[in-house]
């Protein structure tokens, strides 16, 4: 890691990485917005951006783990809602609960939901899209029938817990630090551990994975538990950040989560993509929301822009893949 050569290498790797495309888009977006409205980059504003993205980032990273292995988890919004309500309920009825315990319980409940998905997908060998579409309805129904229209307000929860959503360390929101930790941990795991790489292998070619002796069922099961746990964590963070929780929290967020992952370069049919990309995708989507609000663009355009972005992202991935294939083809014919 010393000398000019490695610097050049790092730069080159940056340019060839899929993530760099999103970074460029993000930078451009922030530049344009800042030119129009200079205090878009004020400390408070940046803090807000990070805060706003944190929950989506956690969800998108969890989703990445599942999507990489050629599955999908559509139930994350419902899990988030369920855990957010459960956390609120716990803290309003037992305000003395330490924040750490509340977080752990929330993550645990999310993981339990993940276990349900994982068992159905891995053991019953049923397509994840169908199962998680089913649990999307089912978890939300459980949430509703538990809440029965009850709303938990900020005043019902202890300040120490709500602080999780507002405190900053050296000016950086705690929420963003938690999200970043999750990104780094999952990203590091996926890149550097055998079981992480096996998820890519499963997503890339499931039949080959089975022949290679990879415990496919167990890995897929684990990926759903991880995704559920991250949705659980997101639920706890949601409760802390917004302070107001009812049974509808997180409704419809699953599409944003999938969109963030796809925009971040996670292939919808598995095998490639990274947690970092997904996190950047989530950050980009959130920033677009904030930018449009700041630029005072007709808010009706936002959804259309997000849709266009998804199409652009997958189109770009395709283009890059075709280019790379052409390059390889050229090279191998020279070697022959």
């Amino acid at each position, binding site marked *: 890691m010393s000398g000019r050569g490695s610097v050049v290498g790092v730069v080159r790797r940056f340019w060839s990485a899929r993530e760099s495309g999103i970074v460029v888009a993000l930078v451009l977006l922030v530049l344009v917005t800042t030119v129009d*409205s200079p*205090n*878009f980059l004020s400390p*408070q*504003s940046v803090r*807000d951006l990070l805060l*706003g993205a944190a*929950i989506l980032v956690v969800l998108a990273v969890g989703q990445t783990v599942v999507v990489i292995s050629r599955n999908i988890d559509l139930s994350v919004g419902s899990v988030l809602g369920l855990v957010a309500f459960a956390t609120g309920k716990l803290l309003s009825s037992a305000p003395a609960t330490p924040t750490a315990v509340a977080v752990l319980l929330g993550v645990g409940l999310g993981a339990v939901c993940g276990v349900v998905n994982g068992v159905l997908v891995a053991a019953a060998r049923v397509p994840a899209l169908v199962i998680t579409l089913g649990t999307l309805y089912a978890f*939300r*129904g459980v949430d*509703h029938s538990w*809440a*029965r*229209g*009850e*709303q938990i*307000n*900020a*005043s019902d929860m202890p300040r120490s817990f709500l602080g999780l959503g*507002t405190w900053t360390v050296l000016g950086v929101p705690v929420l963003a630090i938690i999200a970043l930790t999750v990104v780094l941990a999952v990203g590091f795991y996926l890149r550097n551990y055998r079981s992480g790489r096996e998820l890519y292998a499963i997503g890339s070619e499931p039949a080959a994975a089975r022949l290679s002796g990879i415990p496919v069922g167990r890995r897929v099961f684990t990926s759903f538990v991880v995704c559920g746990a991250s949705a659980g964590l997101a639920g706890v963070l949601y409760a802390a950040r*917004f*302070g*107001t929780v*009812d*049974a*509808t*929290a997180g*409704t419809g967020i699953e599409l944003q989560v999938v969109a963030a992952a796809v925009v971040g370069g996670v292939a919808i049919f598995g095998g490639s993509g990274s947690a970092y990309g997904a996190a950047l995708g989530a950050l980009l989507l*959130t920033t677009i*929301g*904030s930018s*449009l*609000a*700041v*630029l*005072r663009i007709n*808010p*009706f355009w936002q959804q259309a822009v997000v849709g266009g972005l998804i199409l652009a992202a997958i189109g770009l991935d395709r283009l890059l893949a075709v280019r790379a294939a052409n390059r390889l083809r050229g090279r191998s014919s020279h070697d022959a």
Partner: protein
Amino acid sequence: MSQHQRTVRVGLIAVLALLVTAACGGTTRGSGDSPTSNRATGSANPDAALVEGLDVAFLPKQVNNPYFTVADGGGKAATEEFKGSYKEVGPSEASASSQVSYINTLSQQQTDVIVTSANDPNAICGALTSARQAGAKVVTFDSDTKPECRDVFVNQATAEGIAKNQVELISAQIGGAGKIAILSATPNATNQNAWIELMREELRKPEHAGIEIVTVAYGNDDDQKSFQETQGLLRSYPDLKGIVSPTTVGVAAAARYLSTSEYKGKVALTGLGTPNQMREFVKDGTVEAFALWNPADLGYLAAYAGAALASGRITGAAGEEFEAGKLGEYTIGADGVVVLGPPTVFDQGNIDQFDF
């Protein structure tokens, strides 16, 4: 290849032919027919006793929505008072089409009184009309439908009243002059749009000449979106003096954002919110005062209006009067509208007296 071209050509010709036939003559906007109005028929008997054992069904915009849970709770209390049987049904997502399905079900169940809040003033009209033809009395509350589709609308406050109240609140908080922004719910929320329009009108009056609405932002009644929109407003209008958010989700989200930001105490915030959600922010000084009607009373009044209709005491015609339990006497206004009363303003002094 040639076959492909032929297919395309045949298709084009077919489409053209259709267009030509369609364009020559046909139904245009001016030539449309209109439904026969079925306004209040029959005559009222002001002395009739309230019938016992009425089936009263509350159909909110969305079940498990805290606001409607409280409002329907009021309806339940009222129904118990006049010894009817109460139930609450409704979709878990706020959509007009699911409401139609529930109205049909209620009509099928021979319900005596349907009390509903419309997700769309037009979409549920047909279903309500056929429910009424099947014998049900229909009361709308909170959000009205077209007047010809229901018997009575129980309005939480007149739109003018709310607009006036909101303008007065913000005016007092920003010292009568400055730029303000509005943080609304969804772009097509009927109530909010009506109120915003009337607020603009109110601001044209000379005493509010110093106040200017710079923009309307939409938080979609979603916490995250409302947060973002609040941030956006403060970013794009550094000299903003105040925000009005006439929706409970929006005002709570905006308050929560302000309370932890550098703008706390510098930018005024008011709107329509529930005391439970807002208590913390009133106490920490983020919000000086805000308003809301009592949703429980709203449901309570709607239930009584329904009972009066079903008992034949009123028919929904203007000028008729009816007794609404603890709330006392109400008179039906033009278009079959009953107004609950002026909104309550909550501030440090009184907020602890309320729990909803």
